[in-house]
């Protein structure tokens, strides 16, 4: 790919705009909440998103930064950003972005064999394969490298047993990336391997977890003697943590990833509608106190967005280390949490009890209950702070009692299963 062949960003933007307006539906109004949609509706939405992904693919807008060798467009992050700008206000295949495009596809692109990439990446870009990450475990908390799910070799196959949790949409997704323990007699980071796995494989049971807001997208999977061919291993045996480190990096990068197609600002205000609508629907548009709170929500939204631009640019140009992604992630989590709290406060009594016609003031209490979700999922803010202090600022690492100890001897506490 030579520079000469790359389409000018503005020309690309123009082309994207025209295509989007001609082909995509306007986004549903704001105020969609996560609660209680029925299963059929969920599945219909997934089907539509696969369809939209296929439309993007056919129009040459899928995998904008994926190399042409794997059916991508071979363009630059600037092109992806331009596309995302133009996408504001339109439908998009939300469920197919994070985790499918990043970290899953990103890991595949980085560590997959040529055959694995040829087999899966085009299918992902066409919406034919939706990938999820089987990473966390019920006992694990922040310590993803402490995985207890085991993989035991039997000839050309591996036998997987254990349980993974917090897999979004596993009940309608197709493939999973799995981190498993292949060696218990070495320190924890040195006994892991990564596999890929069709979620409908025999021995995989998917249980939907009910979140406190009624959402049932997250799943727990029980793996019981699940057989995976060695050709579906990613990276070397027992060297899974090399993959894992980048996997986590791609996860932290999600909001800056060049692989993600998502309307600009969607993670900030877009999906929930403007905070000022909450002020208006709460009947407080002339209340200076409510206005100031709304101003704070706008303030931290804009600042977080600017920081994410800076970090993405810094990492891309090499002026920042990859670990700096944690800086953006930390502020984003804190900001999202504060924005939920602000909307809840603005809603007043409707934050506690609301009527169906309360508009954007409704459901703010439910959002508030779920406030910590971004600060937990995809690596906790505590881990982000550790990464910043230790990896970005170079401060001494926390004492870990599981370093240089065979994994089976590591203390686990009574809460550990």
């Amino acid at each position: 790919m030579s520079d000469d062949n790359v389409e000018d960003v503005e020309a690309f933007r123009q082309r994207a705009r025209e295509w989007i307006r001609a082909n995509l539906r306007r986004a549903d109004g704001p105020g969609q909440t996560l609660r209680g949609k029925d299963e059929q509706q969920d599945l219909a939405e997934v089907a539509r998103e696969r369809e939209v992904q296929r439309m993007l693919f056919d129009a040459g807008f899928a995998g904008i930064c994926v190399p042409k060798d794997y059916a991508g467009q071979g363009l630059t992050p600037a092109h992806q950003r331009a596309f995302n700008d133009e996408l504001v206000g339109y439908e998009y295949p939300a469920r197919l972005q994070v985790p499918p495009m990043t970290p899953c596809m990103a890991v595949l692109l980085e560590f997959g064999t040529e055959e694995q990439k040829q087999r899966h990446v085009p299918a992902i870009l066409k919406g034919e394969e939706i990938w999820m990450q089987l990473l966390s475990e019920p006992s694990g908390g922040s310590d993803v490298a402490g995985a207890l799910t085991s993989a035991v070799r039997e000839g050309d196959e591996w036998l997987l047993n254990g349980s993974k949790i917090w897999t979004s949409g596993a009940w309608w997704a197709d493939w999973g990336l799995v981190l498993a323990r292949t060696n218990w007699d070495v320190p924890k980071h040195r006994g892991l391997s990564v596999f890929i796995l069709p979620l409908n494989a025999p021995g995989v049971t998917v249980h939907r977890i009910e979140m406190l807001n009624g959402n049932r997208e997250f799943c727990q999977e029980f793996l019981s003697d699940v057989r995976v061919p060695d050709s579906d291993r990613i990276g070397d045996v027992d060297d899974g943590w090399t993959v894992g480190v980048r996997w986590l990096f791609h996860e932290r990068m999600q909001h800056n990833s060049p692989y993600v197609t998502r309307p600009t600002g969607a993670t900030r205000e877009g999906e929930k509608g403007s905070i000022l609508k909450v002020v208006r629907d709460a009947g407080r548009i002339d209340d200076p106190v409510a206005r100031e709170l709304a101003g704070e929500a706008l303030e931290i939204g804009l600042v977080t967005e600017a920081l994410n631009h800076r970090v993405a640019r810094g990492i891309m140009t090499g002026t920042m280390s990859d670990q700096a992604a944690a800086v953006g992630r930390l502020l984003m989590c804190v900001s999202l949490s504060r924005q939920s709290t602000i909307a809840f406060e603005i809603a007043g009594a409707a934050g506690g009890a609301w009527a169906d016609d309360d508009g954007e003031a409704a459901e703010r209490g439910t959002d508030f209950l779920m406030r910590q979700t971004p600060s937990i999922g995809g690596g906790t803010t505590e881990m982000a702070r550790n990464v910043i202090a230790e990896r970005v600022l170079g401060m001494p690492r926390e004492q870990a009692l599981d370093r240089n100890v065979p994994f089976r001897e590591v203390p686990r506490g009574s809460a550990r299963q």
Partner: protein
Amino acid sequence: MLLQLSSDQEFFRETTDKFLTDQVPVEVLRRLRDEAAGYDADYWRRGAELGWTSLLVTEKHGGGNISGNGILDLTIVAHEFGAHAAPGPLIATNVVAAALAETDSHPDVIAGLLDGSTVATWCIDEPGRRPLDVDVEIRVDGDDLVINGVKRPVEAAEQASHLLVTGRTDDGLTQVLVPAETAGVTVTAMRSVDLTRRFGAVSFSDVRVPRAAAVGEVGQASAQVQRQFHLVLALVNAESVGAMQTAFDMTVEWGFDRYSFGRPLVSYQALKHRFADMKSWLEAGHAITDEAAEELGTGDDRAAMLLSAGKAFIGDYGGELIQDCVQLHGGLGVTFEHDVHLYLRRQTVNRALYGTPSQHRQRLADLGQQRDEAAANKVDA
């Protein structure tokens, strides 16, 4: 909760604690979200037998308290309600019982509240208005009172057989007890984050009741309404602190048990410092609640400021505390199966109702200004 309960108070607390532990364990709470009323009528009657609704009613009307300060005694129950995230219209019934007893009105309803056979509730908040900012009209029409307007949210609106309505009559406030089935009364269910409490919007369209339905003097209810509001704040604060306490205890225990990187969570200094902050907020919540209830029960005029300070502080810091408990539980903390959200819900609803933290801070400024002006006048005099 009070640092030192008398033995009578402690016995009372233990009785309620045991009853709630036995009757409404967490599995029952989860199930109750699908029940229309959110609680069982028999459960409520048996609770009333324990004295849950009699502490603010004078002996003359069949009630009685423990320590001489019935409000303080009742905060013990409220604290246990919060600590168990217990169901039942505790605040609603007690406010009405106190109002009726104080004004010597509707003795039959008092009797029903005392034995738990009757549920009543207070209609005070109005949509889009601050607490105590009353727009509902109660017009005198000959021997009748005619009510128009909307109240929401109203706790247990669909469960209550009697509604204590606060409205405006010319320049003054009036309170009236309205049977729920009166013509022109419409109750619409609202949604809420509480699993077991139900709220509704109550609209009054030319609702006509005899003048004898008034609770206290027509147009003279202002001080009475303040007292009721203060009572609600005292109970809501005690409840929320109870919820904070349970969430905190649960999370400390989790922190000792849970290992990460071969070490218990509570060995990490960053988490230890957060536990320390939480501990300071929790003890502060207890402190302001108890001091306010003590002074309210003895009629001290600092009570208003202490109650609003408590409502604001417990609303904000209680929320931060329980959310930090959620955070420390990781993904489990946001699942329906885990228990921590039961207490988060209770604190969250309590924070939003009867004035948000922001609204109580504004009220504190008003009260502080009145205090300063009174002090200035005193010095001048």
